[in-house]
């Protein structure tokens, strides 16, 4: 872990501000968390577990009351709000886009973030190429699929060069294919060095080596690699199942293989990993 520390939260609790519906309720409690450059963090949790709040906190948008320490950057500067706010990609593919083409949208985003005028167009086009929309710069937004719209939103976020890419259930409103496409694109961005915080309710979207933050009632109850999520004892005893998640196909198959004396390491989570593990077993 020699990578640069981006953010550190020490014993941070978050309450809704007055006049909000959930006034005075703790949305997050006693959060200890540090995020390093280049990490992939999957935030897993049921509805109302505090995933979105955590995302907003990291983005620097917070209509909250915060206690505890937020340290930013390698020197650990103390801060009560995260500067250089990172944009979030939200669930609804249509909601966040205001340009009528991907190109317009990203340009508008850069303008709003106050980038130097001369850089804007280059930056915008670069980001769009990076997410795979290079061919569709000037295609009308309404002719894009849901997945492509999400990629356009992701390009906008990338273009403003945030310290990390925050995605709050970006696949929740997409069908299976589009979800897989968006996920694979973001995985590719991560391989090129982008720090990613991916919020999800779907275990199938995890990779075995992802760092998983499992949130339950506003607390982080699990902060380990994904392949530990369903390991440990008999079925029903693992942390994942304890918090109500059904083991995905990869895990079920790996468990059955384990019962027959074949141990796949690390334990595959999704089907692609299962396939890989089976292919390379014993070789």
């Amino acid at each position, binding site marked *: 872990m020699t990578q640069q520390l981006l953010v550190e939260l020490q014993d941070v609790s978050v309450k809704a501000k007055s006049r909000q519906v959930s006034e005075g309720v703790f949305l997050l409690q006693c959060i200890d968390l540090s995020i390093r450059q280049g990490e992939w963090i999957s935030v897993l949790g049921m509805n109302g577990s505090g995933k979105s709040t955590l995302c907003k906190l990291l983005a620097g948008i917070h209509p909250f009351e915060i206690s505890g320490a937020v340290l930013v950057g390698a020197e650990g500067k103390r801060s009560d709000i995260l500067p250089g706010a990172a944009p979030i990609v939200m669930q609804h593919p249509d909601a*966040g886009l205001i340009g009528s083409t991907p190109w317009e949208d990203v340009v508008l985003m850069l303008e709003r973030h106050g980038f130097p005028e001369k850089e804007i167009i280059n930056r915008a086009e670069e980001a769009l190429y990076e997410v795979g929309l290079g061919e569709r710069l000037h295609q009308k937004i309404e002719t894009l699929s849901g997945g492509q719209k999400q990629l356009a939103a992701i390009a906008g976020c990338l273009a403003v060069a945030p310290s990390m890419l925050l995605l709050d259930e970006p696949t929740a409103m997409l069908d299976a294919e589009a979800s897989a496409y968006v996920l694979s694109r973001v995985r590719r961005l991560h391989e090129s060095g982008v720090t990613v915080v991916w919020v999800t309710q779907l275990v199938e979207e995890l990779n075995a080596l992802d760092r998983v933050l499992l949130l339950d009632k506003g607390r982080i109850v699990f902060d380990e690699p994904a392949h530990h999520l369903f390991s440990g004892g008999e079925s029903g005893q693992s942390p994942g199942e304890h918090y109500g998640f059904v083991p995905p196909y990869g895990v079920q198959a790996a468990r059955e293989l384990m019962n027959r004396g074949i141990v796949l390491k690390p334990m595959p989570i999704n089907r692609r990993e299962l396939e890989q593990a089976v292919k390379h077993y014993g070789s």
Partner: protein
Amino acid sequence: MEAKDVAAMKEQSGGEVRIFHIRIAAETGGILLNDASAVFRSGTITLLIGRNGAGKSTLLESMAGLRELAAGVIYYGQDSLWRGKRNSKLNRDVLLQLGISMQQSQSQWFKSTAYEEIAYSLKPYSVAREIQSDLITSAANSAGLDPDLLERDPWSLSGGQQRRLALACLLVCSPAWLLLDEPTAGLDETGKRRLAEVLAFHKGKGGGAVIATHEPEALLELADQVLVLDGGTIRAAEASELPRREEPAAMAERLAAAWHNKHQHQQQILQGQLSSINGASISLIQNRGDAGQVLAKDTAQAGWLHPHAFDPRVLMAAYLMITSCMLALGTWRGIAAAGAVTLALAGPCWPLFKHWIPVIRGVSLLSVVLIVIAGLQFGPLAFQWSGAEATAITLSRLFLMMVLGMPLLGLVTPFRLQRALDQTFGWLTRFGVPVAAFTMLISLIFRFIPLLMEEWGRFRRVAKARGKVASKGVPLSQMKVMLLPYMRSILRLAENMADALEARGFGVQRKKPVYGFRLRPGRSDLWLLLAALGACAVLLLV
């Protein structure tokens, strides 16, 4: 259900649904389905698979009469779905036999309790009051909806509960045909099992179902046929396209046996089979980039027809120049010249505004009526052309000006309009006028309008499907019910939008606006200006 009812249902549905060579056009132009044919038998379940945008939802909606057929016919038993002259009306008897659940229809509620919501679906069937409540409770029961929830506001139910309510709304009508769009999306394992039970029961009593799905695994065991939508047509699925999801235990057993035998060849075979579990879905993902909303888009548009071709300021100037010349015209010769100019300039842009035909038609009709009224003479009642002529000239002029303006809507995007306004009125900022904020607002409004229309379209379809409306439009009584939920839905949309914009950093106000992109008139603008000048010369000389 008694045997008598089963027989009655079989007779009623006439055994099968047949669709012959249907073609469906998209509202925005282009073809969604082309020459699609299929037969669905009652007492069987059909799965529709195919890539996103392949037309699965379109097919289901067409089968429910929610989309007009550009060609072809759909028969339920002996009855055609559409009837009347030029298929102007739906066959209500057929509509009563089918129940459709569209995607996201579970979040469009019209009533204030779940019970009333189910009763609303039942209304077109004019069921006797005494048995209505029995039907509703039993439908809720078979959909797995807790009886305690029936008095709750549908919007306050959880996502899973709302899906069950949607299913109850469907089942209460006991339709012979169930048309389901992605019924398993977002359901957990228990939910999927219950759905399979409901479908098995439906099939057992002789009902038919057509189900569009992305995850055929969940319902494959029940299915009698699997059809693929591909390139706008329908074909039977090949074996390789069917997911073969092996139980984890069975798969582990085979793999373990193979490894223990250290039989290399056999191991390879097994690996191949495992890969094929994923094969279908992987190839779908790779192709994903190409899947579009419509099959054949208007890609033949000329290069200069896209919104980036012209500077909005030049377009505006050209339009103002020509229309002010038109205003000066007062003779039929002049109108003829104006017509020629309009034809020459707006004609090539026809693809950009051909979806405005209803407006053009409406305005022409209105003009004719006004001209006739202007020429009317009373006592004795007569029509005199001399009285109508001036009106006719004025209205023709206005009509041509309107048509000439229509391409502008397609040639300017909100963003470019915003930039044009920024650049034209930017100097006002010095006097404290928040120009950037205003232009941003305009841009947002333009972006929001299509979303509102889309949402309205979806509401309309849901209301038509649930009300079994046989006419093409939605009757006024239905509108009333739709309005409030629609308002609620768009408010939620606006809220989502505000949230998303804040999350993307648009909330921060800047003192000095930044413009990464500025409009610069180019060569095409010069041509446009020359064309406009030429048009003005023609108009002034006649």
